[in-house]
């Protein structure tokens, strides 16, 4: 069975997204570090069964606590087919650090800009098209708590692909491929 991982900083809504996608009941709370171990479930994408794994929150793949260690080990052991990098849309810069680390490791990525409603409330404007162009992978705005954007997220999982950091750098500087 193909595997999809949810990765991201602590308290960005990975477990809410996980529950929405899989119909499971992972414990959700409004403080960081609720998931210190991983949770597994299954979901259907275009008629195909996938295993979906909710990783504990991590800021980096260079672990400094148990939760980050679990996240790193799961990624290297289980070899995901796709990683959904969940970013808090109100703290994009911070979330991109882990996203780029995941890309550096060669995982096929889809980015979920979660809590995009909170970002809008704070008048944070994100140029999703441009971010998608620079990263070269799908970037989808989501609100996991309401389910907004999840259909698009799932439909674009097949577009996930590995991306070289060098080509991202080039695009970030505005140079053509």
């Amino acid at each position: 069975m193909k595997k999809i991982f949810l990765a991201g900083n602590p308290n960005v809504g990975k477990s809410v997204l996980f529950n929405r996608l899989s119909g499971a009941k992972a414990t959700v709370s409004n403080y960081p570090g609720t998931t210190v171990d991983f949770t597994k479930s299954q979901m259907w994408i275009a008629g195909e069964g996938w295993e979906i794994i909710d990783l504990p929150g991590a800021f980096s793949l260079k672990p400094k606590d148990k939760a980050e260690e679990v996240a790193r080990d799961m990624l290297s052991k289980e070899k995901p087919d796709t990683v959904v990098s969940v970013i808090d849309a109100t703290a994009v810069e911070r979330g991109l650090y882990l996203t780029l680390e995941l890309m550096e490791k060669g995982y096929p990525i889809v980015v979920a800009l979660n809590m995009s409603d909170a970002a809008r409330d704070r008048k944070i404007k994100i140029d999703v098209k441009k971010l998608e162009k620079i990263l070269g992978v799908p970037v989808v705005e989501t609100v996991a708590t309401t389910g907004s954007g999840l259909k698009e997220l799932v439909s674009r999982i097949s577009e996930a692909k590995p991306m070289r950091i060098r080509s991202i750098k080039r695009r970030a500087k505005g140079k053509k491929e």
Partner: protein
Amino acid sequence: MKKKLSDMRPAEKGRIIDIDSSIRASVAGMGIRTGEELKVATEQPIRGPVVIVVKGRETSLGRGLAKSILVECEE
């Protein structure tokens, strides 16, 4: 004045000027990088973690990590 982050007082502000190379990569993902401005939010008693605000986001750091971060503090 230069200070270790672990020696800063609540509400004190400053700019990060050096991070020990052994922890640099592991805190970078939290937005803690050389040149960033920070403010100490609270200090937990009994040698608990230091809570700081970087770019409007609160982050807590263990004392071991906080000791390895050097900050140029505002007077």
